[in-house]
């Protein structure tokens, strides 16, 4: 280990694009949005029926079908509390996925680093495959 008293901001990269900042905000926004959607679902349920019990499951569909089905139901009829719960879980699952997607773009188009474009591309492909599982 070496130590220096160089300014912290310039130590890691010469690029002006703030990748760490972007990834940090993607993760934070995803988690906060997810928590907000879940909380809305529970509060709405409490106001409407007086309890917090949800009894529905996600069966026979992959992640993308689950998200599309939830969005379609939200668009077609009055939004129900359970749809907010579904969206909260959906947004949470999308958060690391979007983070990896942003990393692929960063390594490909900002850093022009083919090695890490390949690595993050592999991670993105495996995640996409896993989200298509049913």
């Amino acid at each position, binding site marked *: 280990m070496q*130590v220096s*008293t160089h300014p912290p901001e310039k130590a890691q990269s010469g690029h002006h694009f703030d990748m760490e900042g972007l*990834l940090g905000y993607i*993760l934070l926004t995803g988690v906060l949005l997810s928590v907000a959607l879940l909380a809305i679902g529970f509060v709405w349920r409490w106001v409407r029926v007086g309890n917090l019990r949800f009894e529905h499951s996600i069966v026979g569909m992959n992640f993308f079908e689950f998200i599309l089905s939830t969005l379609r139901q939200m668009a077609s009829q009055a939004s129900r509390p359970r749809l907010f719960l*579904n969206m*909260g879980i959906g947004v*949470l699952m999308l958060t690391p996925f979007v983070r990896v997607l942003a990393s692929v773009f960063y390594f490909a188009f900002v850093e022009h680093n083919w090695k890490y474009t390949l690595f993050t591309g592999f991670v993105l492909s495996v995640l996409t495959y*896993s989200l298509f599982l049913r």
Partner: protein
Amino acid sequence: MSFHVLFLVSIVAGFIGAMSGMGGGVILIPVLTFLGMDIKHAIAVSIVSVIATSSGSASAYVRDRITNLKVGMFLEMFTIVGALAGAAITLISGRRVLFILFGVVLLSSWVALFRQRNEGWRQTSHQDIFSRWLELEGSYYDRAVRQTIVYQGTRAYLGGPLMFGAGVIAGLLGIGAGALKVLIHDLVMGLPPKVSTTTSNLIIGVTALAGTSVYLAAGMIDPGLAAPVILGVVLGAFMGTRLLVRLTNQTVQRFFLGVLLVLGVEMLLRGIWGV
């Protein structure tokens, strides 16, 4: 199980998990199964909440520029494949086997943490060709010592396959397996402790997503059970992180070692006796 019970248990799990740095899963699953939830459902519910806690803490660490993105991106390739395999194994495993494995992992983490108490970080003097090719070096500003620490990661050829194993355990048991990942970063790849912990946090989110997708496909993610757990664990982790700064490292570690030992023995015995 009612919302209130799930929510309260998850707050406690998130709280202790954040203070110990091991995440809520190691507390959550033993308690949920103790309260009567099927272990496979507890694992499925826990792994979704792991995405929330790891992404939440990773967001702060990444912005602080302590996390090494390249180390994270390289190792993720191994952990996500491991998590997919681990979750698939859980679906076909017997419940007693899962209890025993959980107990063994908790007790192994206990041994690792216990030994780690007296060991400092050893720096690596030589970076191998493969790790250099992977550009596994970096620097971060350590506010505690007010210095920029420059380091080199090494033995990536060993770290990768070992992280596959950590991914299998994460997917199999629905936990972040952060202690194991940090050990691999620390002892095998020679990364400084702060870089190990923060990079591990980044990897855990993606690994948990891979595991979650398998449980979702198997119809084991019940939003009515997962949602209170996510909310509770996030709230508990938030409170735990706030309290952490007021406690000494020794107090936290001693408390967590005790909890880990009790839960590990309890899960192991339940597996052996077939509860």
